[in-house]
């Protein structure tokens, strides 16, 4: 198996939405937390192991106004930061030899 390009939210992590549409991602195992803005919340909900980063970026472009051309890179960087913090993994795409 190898890790693919389809990010998957850590199922232990809790999304806690706040009154201004920002949210806190909280990992009860590590007590790590990160604050994310409404775009980040939108992306978080798409981290199901089926959507690629490119597909997620396309959904962001469809769902928000004035999305910059750099959105795919920003989405990837965002997901990688979450992955570095243990909030996200990547779905396996196949068996290793």
């Amino acid at each position, binding site marked *: 198996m190898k890790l693919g390009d389809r990010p998957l939210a850590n199922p232990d992590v809790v999304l806690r939405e706040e*009154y201004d549409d920002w949210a806190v991602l909280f990992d*009860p195992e590590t007590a790590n937390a990160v*604050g994310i*803005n409404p775009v980040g919340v939108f992306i978080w909900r798409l981290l199901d192991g089926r959507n690629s980063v490119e597909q997620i970026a396309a959904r962001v472009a469809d769902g928000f106004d004035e999305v910059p051309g750099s959105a795919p890179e920003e989405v990837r960087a965002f997901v990688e930061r979450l992955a570095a913090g243990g909030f996200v993994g990547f779905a396996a795409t196949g068996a290793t030899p």
Partner: protein
Amino acid sequence: MMPTLTTSTDRGEARLPRLEQIYFYLTAGCNLACRHCWLAPKFDPDGSRYPTLPVALFERAIAEALPLGLTGVKLTGGEPLLHPRIEELLAIVGERDLALTLESNGLLCTPRLAAAIAQIPKRAVAISIDGVDAATHDGVRGVAGSFDRAVQAVRDLVAADTPPQIIMSIMRYNLDQVDAMVRLAEKLGASSVKFNLVQPAARGQALYDTERAVSVANMIALGRRVATELAPATRLRLDFDLPPAFRPLSAVARGDGRGICNITAIIGVLPTGHYALCGIGEHIPELVFGQIEADPLARVWRDNEVLRTLRAGLPDRLEGVCADCLMRHRCLGSCVAQNFYEHKNLFAPFWFCERACKDGIFPQSRLAGRRAQAADSAAGAGEAKS
């Protein structure tokens, strides 16, 4: 487009931090008698009755702090403009290329003083105005005519290219004037408005004892209204000075950390020339660390037991709700001096957060530990609204 805000960090072992700021409490007296003052200086209409910090000690403290990392000073009081040699002090700040923060009631701010302040390249001035009319402000401040002079101070500072922040402390006396204060600040040309929580210390305690302070629940609700309704509708920056757990993440991510006390990078100097945690040292001898003439600042900064204990213990030794708060690395217990004043414990939780927790209105989204697990379980679907 997608900023994130880390609320938990690995700070590693405690190191000797830079001494970035000195808070100079320049005068033991004050020319006002504010109902909510947490320091309660003695009334001194012309600055002649009670100690003021000698210029030589001001200079010496700065000279000794520069090698430790000093980048700025806050001049406060009492009332800093009551200092008989305030222009000399301002000149010293400018000559050392330090950032100036000046907190004043504005009564003694003249066009000449405003011009002297404007000579300092890095400067931020705050004028306290607690009502949008003379009856309210003068009633809170205890001296007739103080409203007109504070408003004139704002005008003089604006004219001198130093548009000030207006600080309004929220009490029952002025609770219905928050919106109008924003309009007044816009009209005067202020740079921002900061809404302060009254601390239950000294005269502030009396306000709580007599139910003239605003409840925790009402302060939380007002803070949200300021963030969601008033702030988007004005060109001014609005800061609502509640602990970070009660501030919108959007504001924290923008860097609206103003009002958060970075206690591990600050030392206070009292009018007598004593080093202290902050101005509250005038009431708490345990938080006085030495004297400028007798004790080298480098040694005080490095060796003082209170400072060492704080460095080693913040934020991990914080107790109560602070121990479970996801914002504790930013907040550091909000006001250690206030916490110590109440409990004689450097790591006691902040009173406002404890009260909110007890009343069930602490934002559950900002909690870790058992309290958070309970909240997340209650939310069922794995998502909890704050």
